[in-house]
């Protein structure tokens, strides 16, 4: 395969070019309620070409190998058009030439497990909620995505890496009269099929929460002190802060770039955040990014001070900062963009009870239900929560959405727990989907958060 890709690349005389070919194997099994609505295994493939010519960069994603030469001419033409319309030529930070083949260590290779076994396991988890009368429906599925990637560039790199992602997850919907509630449930990872076994407890717990939510009352809108559980604090880290560590998002936004200067004091003294794609067995693990750069742990915030950010070769050169290996594509249909790998808040030494004791009164809110950011402002939902009275958990509340200003909220992080948990299911949509986007945190106490209510 490398020879074929190299011969395709030899048709360009541009300063730099790279070509990524991927075979993607997907298995999907989907239940809607009791009904199996989809099952199948499929194989697709495609190419992404990038060309840097005369200081202009451009990409073409194409399906058919015979279109390679046409793709090269198109990319060259577009790169030259870019170069004619920008003041500063685009440069790539210098990266090592890599020749490597890498397969991750797996606990049970999903490729060796029959689709029948995958179907039965999914059916088993799907049946757990459906036992209850007040569970209206489920939407639970098995997903397996195997990306076999071949990367070559004109500098001489030749990298073969496999990314294997599996999960069983979905939505449990409860209903009582006109009131409908739902809760997400699931497990997954990038280190094999074994992680999917023995997850009954997860589906049983989430079923119970979906049922309890039918009796919970809506949260009161207003400004509250809150404790976020690790899942929710992880989403906060990813959405509110993480995205603005991605250099491409701020490169051409001068006002945000000014705020996100290295050495700026952005958070409280106790807050440190790191992104480390090299953590083995975590969802966001990879060895090389889709520019062929080896991933490295990148400290982003240290004791509240911004000390690093996530880069592509292009952005590292533009910012004159270190390469980090964070330029990732969804698959063969996309040129890579800067993405987080495993981002998390570093744990402190406090227990959950310490956090409750410090807060006294407020809300304990749990599990993310989608989040979004627009720079200094973010919004995300929690699946459920509890009122905290005198440092004790009281009744359950629902319909929780929180919103805030990034910089104020980073300063308002008052206590950090010791119980770090990283997410097992990803799905970040920044123009393209990243199913391996992984985030985590311990329990975190934040002061003065706006809760929307309904």
């Amino acid at each position, binding site marked *: 395969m490398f020879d074929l890709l190299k011969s395709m690349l030899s048709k360009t005389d541009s300063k730099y070019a790279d070509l990524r070919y991927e075979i993607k194997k997907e298995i999907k099994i989907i239940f809607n309620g009791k009904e199996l609505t989809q099952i199948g295994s499929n194989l697709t493939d495609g190419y992404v070409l990038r060309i840097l010519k005369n200081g202009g*960069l451009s990409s073409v994603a194409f399906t058919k190998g015979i279109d390679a030469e046409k793709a090269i001419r198109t990319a060259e033409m577009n790169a030259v058009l870019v170069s004619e319309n920008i003041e500063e030529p685009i440069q790539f930070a210098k990266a090592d030439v890599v020749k490597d083949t890498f397969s991750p260590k797996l606990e049970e290779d999903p490729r060796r497990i029959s689709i029948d076994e995958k179907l039965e396991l999914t059916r088993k988890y799907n049946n757990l909620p459906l036992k209850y009368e007040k569970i209206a429906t489920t939407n639970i599925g098995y997903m397996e995505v195997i990306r076999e990637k071949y990367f070559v560039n004109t500098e001489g790199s030749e990298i073969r890496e496999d990314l294997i992602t599996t999960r069983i997850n979905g939505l449990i919907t409860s209903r009582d009269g006109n009131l409908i509630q739902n809760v997400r449930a699931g497990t997954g990872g990038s280190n094999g099929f074994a992680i999917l076994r023995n997850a009954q407890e997860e589906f049983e717990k989430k079923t119970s929460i979906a049922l309890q939510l039918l009796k919970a009352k809506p949260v009161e809108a*207003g400004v509250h002190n809150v404790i976020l559980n690790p899942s929710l604090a992880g989403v906060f880290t990813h959405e509110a802060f993480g995205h603005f560590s991605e250099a491409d998002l701020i490169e051409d936004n001068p006002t945000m770039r000014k705020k996100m200067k290295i050495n700026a004091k952005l958070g409280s003294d106790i807050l440190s955040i790191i992104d480390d794609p090299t953590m083995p067995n975590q969802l966001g693990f990879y060895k090389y990014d889709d520019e062929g750069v080896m991933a490295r742990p990148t400290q982003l915030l240290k004791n509240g001070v911004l000390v690093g950010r996530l880069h592509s070769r292009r952005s590292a050169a533009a910012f004159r900062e270190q390469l980090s290996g964070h330029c990732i594509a969804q698959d063969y249909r996309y040129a890579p963009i800067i993405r987080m790998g495993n981002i998390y808040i570093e744990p402190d030494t406090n227990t959950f009870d310490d956090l409750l004791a410090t807060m006294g009164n407020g809300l304990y809110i749990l599990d993310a239900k989608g989040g979004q950011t627009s720079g200094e402002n973010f919004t995300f939902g929690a699946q459920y929560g509890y009122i905290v009275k005198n440092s004790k958990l009281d009744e359950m509340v629902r319909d929780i959405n929180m919103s805030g200003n990034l910089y104020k909220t980073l300063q308002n992080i008052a206590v950090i727990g010791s119980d770090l948990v990283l997410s097992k299911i990803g799905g970040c949509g920044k123009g393209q989907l990243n199913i391996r986007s992984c985030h985590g945190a311990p329990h975190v106490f934040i002061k003065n958060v706006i809760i929307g209510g*309904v």
Partner: protein
Amino acid sequence: MEKLLAIAKANSDKVEIFSLEQTINLVKFENSKLKNIECKVQSGISLRLIKDGKLGFSYTKNLINREELLQNALDSLKGGVEATFDFPHTKDLPRLSTYDPSIENISNKNFVDECNRVCKKLSSKTKGQINVSAGSAIDKLRIINSSGTDVLLSTSNYFFHNTILYPNSYAAIHRMLYLKKFEKSPDEYLHFVLDTYNRSLKKVNPKAGKMKVLFMPETMYVLMWRLLSATSGKDVYQKQSPMAEKIGEKIFDAKITIYDDPLNDKMPNARSFDDEGMPCRYLPIIEKGRLKNFYYDLHYSKKMNTKPTGHGYKSAMWGGDTVFLKPIPSLEHLHIKPGTKSFSELIKLMDKGIVVAGALGAHSGNIQNGDFSIGLSPGLYVDNGEIVGHVKDAMIAGNIYNAMKNVIDIEDTCYPVSAGTFPAIIFDNISVATRK
């Protein structure tokens, strides 16, 4: 495709082949500077077959190996997905104007020049950061099936996004131009974004409470997502629609009429058949506040023992590759009937309240129940009938079945936006949470 149909037919009872070829060009400017040019040339084929009452499905990007594609579909039969329906025999479809050949003579250079022209024009009149993008998409779609259907469609699209950003964020005023062919952005379109931005430059922090809230066409999707969920044949069948028993009932204000109009070929992407080869038709969803219809694909119409409405599309909430997806009920040509007042008249009429110019977190919250709880990104604050500033660190929340009963007025013009073609609408008595 014909060969594939023949070998698939020999191995099953009924067959459908869906083929899509796409060429997309995209030019992006950030802060008035060219940032990126991207091109995608993609193709793919998906196969559905029915054998002994079971449904098989497979797809590929490169049709190198027909037998493998067929085998994948045959293998998937073993799972036992129930096939309730037959593939339709569709013929004599209306001819729609969906393709403008002039799109082929347009290059990325034209897009770069247009972006440069707009950036130059706007940057002299505002201090805000200007991000624009221009691009085109050409699609060639063909569906054939064993019932004798063979339908073809070529579409051409040109789109231009014009965005002015508030400092320290991606919160912005934006508007899209969406056409079948390349045209320069008209002045009034550029002026709207510029004028709305410049009027709202001041940062304000209004008091929390219940107030009038205007949803711009660009944020109407927040409300429409909830209605789409409640009226989808899939959700009705799965008993997760609060509207399941309410056909014929008045659920919204009488000023609200919402319909799907796939045959309107003044708009880009008009369709005479859906992704299952069913003929498309006009479908009222809400007429003068009354719930008229749910929408169905082949599968869920059969499940609900009703007729398909021609709304089976291979779509998903987060996009995804059309070819890889199975059809589900989807409204791809949604319209809200306009009212009689201009946008500036609506702002005067509002007197005091919030304009939702951008929304954060529309996908979170209890969508089926109709609840919404979104961050303003930004909101515009209206006082004394004028836009006086923008609000960021705030949320609005409500439920569409309450909000849509409290409609004050509707804009006289519709704009193509995410999820449909909508006017702005003012609602009364919506809860706004702020730090005050």
